[in-house]
């Protein structure tokens, strides 16, 4: 059902072609913006975008928005990842519990986080709590599913071997289940981080007074396309950076995994 994120290492040795594509896109963008094919004021040039970016960086607006967004996404992600992992381990390890809650997850999963914004606002107001909880909820569902899947695939023979070697429950959890599920856990966290960013944007568009997506909305009202481009660029770079960091951490932590 769910697509597994590509294994860590997908960026390895692919920098050359990737830079080539980025250069081509930049060139096309530049040519398109200069050609006059797009109505004036709707497509900024790369230089205008860079200028808008530099502008918000110098004024301190970028740092403030980035800080507000990262705090929300980070806190929501942390809460969702912790609870989602715990649930994933519980339902992945206990088939009977899994049978009981799987229908519930199947029902909740297709409801996009953005559809919950009005409800979150009604319940918790437009403050930070509503945003954090919305992000946490979206991350929780994503992480739960991935971790559940990983834990339920841990080979029975690993757990049996540990039991017949006399390892008590806490050792079986820490020394067998946890490392055996670690590759899935890392995939879950990477996916969860991308979900956190999506939910962040949904939450900020639903009412905020700071943040990257809030800024996009304001810039949209003033038709500042150059600033909007700069904001989208920052969102994209943020996502890539987080994913690269998690992937690099993953490669170190699950060095034995060939996937």
């Amino acid at each position, binding site marked *: 059902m769910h697509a597994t994120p590509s294994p860590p290492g997908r960026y390895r040795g692919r920098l050359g072609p990737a830079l080539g594509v980025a250069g081509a896109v930049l060139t096309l963008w530049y040519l398109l913006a200069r050609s006059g094919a797009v109505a004036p004021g709707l497509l900024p040039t790369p230089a205008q975008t860079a200028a808008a970016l530099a502008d918000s960086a110098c004024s301190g607006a970028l740092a403030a928005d980035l800080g507000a967004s990262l705090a929300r996404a980070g806190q929501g992600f942390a809460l969702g990842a912790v609870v989602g992992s715990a649930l994933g381990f519980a339902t992945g390890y206990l088939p009977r519990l899994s049978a009981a809650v799987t229908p519930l997850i199947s029902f909740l999963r297709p409801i996009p986080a953005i559809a919950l914004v009005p409800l979150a606002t009604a319940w918790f107001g437009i403050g930070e709590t509503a945003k954090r909880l919305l992000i946490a909820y979206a991350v929780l569902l994503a992480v739960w599913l991935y971790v559940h899947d990983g834990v339920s695939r841990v*080979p029975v*023979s690993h757990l*049996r071997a540990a*039991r*017949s*070697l006399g*390892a008590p429950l806490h050792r079986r959890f820490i020394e067998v289940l946890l490392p*055996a599920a670690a590759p899935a856990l890392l995939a879950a966290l990477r996916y969860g981080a991308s979900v956190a960013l999506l939910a962040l944007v949904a939450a900020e568009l639903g009412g905020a007074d700071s943040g990257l997506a809030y800024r996009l909305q304001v810039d949209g009202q003033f038709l500042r396309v150059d600033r909007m481009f700069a904001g989208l660029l920052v969102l994209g770079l943020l996502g890539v950076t987080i994913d690269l960091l998690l992937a690099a951490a993953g490669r170190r932590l*699950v060095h034995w995994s060939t996937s």
Partner: protein
Amino acid sequence: MSLEVRLEGLSAHYGDTRVLDRTDLRLPAGSFTALLGPSGCGKSTVLNLVAGFVRASEGRVTAGSAPVRGPGPERGVVFQHYALFPWRTARGNVEFALKRLGLPRPERRRRALAALAEVGLADGAEKYPAQLSGGMQQRVALARALAAEPEVLLMDEPFGALDALTRTRMQHLLRALWQRRGTTVLFVTHDIDEALALAERVIVLGGTPGRILADHTVPAGSGDPDLRALIAHHLGSD
């Protein structure tokens, strides 16, 4: 260091399907028994019952004087697909078995290396399972099982995935280890020649639900063509 294992009126079900039918068997302490039969006849079920991984629906298993209620370190298990922990080195895998003993670290390390040396893998101690061949991985699994000093060793087609030459080498190694340690061994296989090469006694399991079709003592020196033919006959006639 070995225990007698007894199966008394032992039956097993998966759902409503009976896969093992009121089976009695006594494995004397220190004996080497092969459990032979076609695939699906319930060999693994018997082994898993003795290991304590699966519960009997009727009857019971005893190891020594104690009834089996679950897995325990006095009954070591070697799995067909090794079941090594890929995040631990060969030494780390063996140390996992030794942790229970509460030894100081250097002693644990020393014993793990000794166990690996015993199975001829002194050089591979710091390698991860993925860096070892199938035969070497099964050596690590054997070292890990033996490091826990089990009194019964349960092996479920442990050499089934190995090439012929490696398999023969592992058989020699296992015979030597058994002769040195005198552990009670129950060895599951579907290969007559393997059963005859290794065991003092060959139990033929078959039928649906599974039951014991024949029980042969293998004379020392083996290679008896009549016995092989007889066992092949029992295997074919279920």
